[in-house]
C-alpha cells in the first residue's frame, strides 16, 4: 500500500518537457515549454516564436534593436566599490567578481548614445544578469551622467528598467540613488527634453519607486512584472493568494500607470515615432 494513490492513470511528461535542451542551438521556452532554434528566437526579437514570451535580454540586445548603425557607450569608467565592507554569506567584492565573470557588461546599467534616423537618443539600459539588475551607486551615477549627456547632446533619454530593486550590499547609498535619480530628472525636465521609461521583466522595488515611474511616457513590455513590493512579500504580508495577472504590465495599464504596452518587435518603430513627435515641439 503506497502513501499516495494515483487517481488519474497515465500522467506523463512529454520527453521534450523533461529534458533540458542543449545550450546554444536550441531554445526551450520558460513559459510554453516549446522548443525553437536559437536562430528563430533571435530573429524574433528574442521572443518565443510559439507564444510571444519576451525573454530577458541584455542591454547590448536592446541597443542592437533600437539604434540605427553604430552607438557609443558612455560612462563605462564607473566601477562599483565596497564602501561598507559588506559581508553576508559572501562578501560584496566576491559577488562583484562573480558578476564580472558572468557578464560582458561592467555594471547593472549601460549607457549609450546613438541614432534613430536623424534623431539622437541616449539610452540607459539595465541588465538583470548583473546582481539582479540591482541599483547601487554606479547605476545611480550612470543615470545621473546619462541625464547630463542627454542635456549636452540636446536629445531625449530612454531608460530601460530591469531590476530586482536596491543593491542591499550598498545599503543607504543604494537607497539614496532613488532620491538622486529623481532629483536629476527634474533637470532634464527643466531643460525641456522628454524622458521615456520602458519597464521590462522584472521592474520592482526602488527602481519602480523612482525613475521607472517618472517617465513623460511610461511604457512596458507585454506581461512583464512591475511592482513596488515583490509578489512573495505581499503574499506573506496579507496571507492570501494574489489575483491572476496581478502586477503584470497589463494590470498596470488597466490601473492607469502606463501609457501603453509595446511588443519588442515594434519597439524601434515606437521610439522612432516618439522621437519625431517630440522633435516637432
Amino acid at each position: 500500500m503506497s502513501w499516495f494513490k494515483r487517481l488519474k492513470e497515465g500522467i506523463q511528461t512529454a520527453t521534450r518537457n523533461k529534458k533540458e535542451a542543449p545550450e546554444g542551438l536550441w531554445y526551450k521556452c520558460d513559459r510554453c515549454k516549446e522548443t525553437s532554434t536559437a536562430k528563430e528566437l533571435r530573429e524574433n526579437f528574442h521572443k518565443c516564436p510559439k507564444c510571444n514570451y519576451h525573454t530577458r535580454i541584455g542591454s547590448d540586445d536592446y541597443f542592437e534593436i533600437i539604434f540605427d548603425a553604430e552607438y557609443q557607450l558612455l560612462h563605462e569608467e564607473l566601477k562599483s566599490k565596497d564602501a561598507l565592507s559588506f559581508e553576508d554569506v559572501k562578501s560584496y567584492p566576491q559577488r562583484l567578481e562573480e558578476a564580472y565573470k558572468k557578464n560582458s557588461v561592467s555594471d547593472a546599467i549601460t549607457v549609450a548614445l546613438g541614432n534613430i534616423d536623424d534623431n539622437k537618443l541616449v539610452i540607459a539600459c539595465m541588465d538583470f544578469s548583473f546582481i539582479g539588475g540591482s541599483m547601487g551607486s554606479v547605476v545611480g551615477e550612470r543615470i545621473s551622467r546619462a541625464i547630463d549627456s542627454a542635456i549636452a547632446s540636446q536629445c531625449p533619454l530612454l531608460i530601460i528598467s530591469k531590476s530586482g530593486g536596491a543593491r542591499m550590499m550598498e545599503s543607504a547609498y543604494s537607497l539614496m540613488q532613488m532620491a538622486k535619480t529623481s532629483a536629476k530628472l527634474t533637470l532634464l525636465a527643466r531643460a525641456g527634453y522628454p524622458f521615456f521609461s520602458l519597464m521590462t521583466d522584472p521592474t520592482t522595488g526602488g527602481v519602480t519607486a523612482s525613475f521607472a515611474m517618472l517617465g513623460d511616457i511610461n511604457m512596458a513590455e507585454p506581461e512583464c512584472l512591475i511592482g513596488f513590493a515583490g509578489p512573495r512579500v505581499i503574499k506573506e504580508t496579507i496571507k492570501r493568494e494574489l489575483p491572476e495577472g496581478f502586477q503584470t504590465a497589463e494590470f498596470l495599464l488597466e490601473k492607469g500607470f502606463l501609457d501603453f504596452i509595446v511588443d519588442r518587435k515594434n519597439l524601434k518603430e515606437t521610439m522612432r515615432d516618439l522621437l519625431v513627435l517630440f522633435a516637432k515641439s
Partner: protein
Amino acid sequence: MIFLEFEKPLASLYEQLEKLKEIGEAGDIDVSSQISVFEEKISEKRKEIYSNLSGWERVQLSRHPERPYTLFYTNKMCDQFIELHGDRHFQDDKAIVGGLATFNGQTVVIIGHQKGINTKMRQYRNFGMANPEGYRKALRLMKLAERFNFPVITLIDTPGAFPGIEAEERGQAEAIARNLFEMAQLRVPIICVIIGEGASGGAIGIGLGDRVFMLENTWYSVISPESCSSILWRSWDYKEQAADALKLTADNMFSAGLIDGIIKEPIGGAHSNPDEMAELLKAKIIETLAEIQPKDPEVRILERIEKYSKMGVYDEVFDVPEPVETAASKKSSKKK
C-alpha cells in the same frame, strides 16, 4: 516601565529601588541615603549601556513602544496644530499625518508617519506603514506649503511603505517616485528628521530635503535588518549581523555623508524624557530654518539637487570604449 533586552541590568536595579522606596514609605527606617546611592548606580549603569549601543540595539530602541511619535512632537513643539486630512483622490491615510502649525512664530507645514500608542491604535495607524494616498496627501500638503511660502518639516518613522494588493493597485511606487521628483524642486525649505524607523522607500518617500537629520537612536536603511537577513542569509536569525552589515545607525549615516546631522537624545533614549526630546528637536529645526530660509528658492533647489547628485561611492577607471556597430550596420558595410 518597559525594558528592552539590553536594558535588563537596569530592570533589576529599578526593582531594588522600588523595594527601598516601599520600606521608606513604611516609615520605620531612613533609607534616603541608600535611595540616592541606587539612583546614582542606575544613572551610571544607564550611561554605560547607552554609550556603546550596537546597530541592532538602536533598531530596538527606535521601535520602543513608548517612543514619541509625530503627533506628540506637533503638540509639544507648536503653539497650534491643525491636522489636515485626505489626498483628494481616494481617501485619508492614517499612517501619515500632516497639517498646518504655528512653529516659533511662523506658519509651517508638518508631515510625518504616525504609529499607534496601543494595540487598537497601532492597527488603526497600520503600524506606520502608509498606502499611496498617504504619500499623495503629503504631496498635497507640500504643494499647499509651496503656494503660501510655508517651510515643510517631515518626521519619519516607518517600518516601510505598506506592501499590499491595494497599495500596488493604487500605485505605491508611483506615489513615492512622484514625491521624490516634486520634493527635489519644491520652492520652500524642507527639513526631514528620522524620529524612529527609517525603512527604505517608505521613509525616503517623505524624506528628500535641504537638510536631513536623524535622532541619535534611530536607523535608516534600504531594507530592515530582518528582511535583509531573510533575503541574503535565507533565514530570519541573522538580524543582528544584518543590522551591523547595513551600517544603518545615525553615526554610520553621518560619516557616510548621507545625512546632515545627528540630534542627541536624552540618556536612555527619546522615550525616557519625551519633553526634553521635543525641545532638542525644536531647537535644531529653529537653528536650521534660520540658516536655509533666507536663501533664494532657486539657489536652494539647485543646492538640494546638487547634494543628492553627489551621493554614492564608486571608482573611476578611464578606458574609453570604441564605438559599437549594430548588426544592421555590419551588414550594410559588407555590401559596400
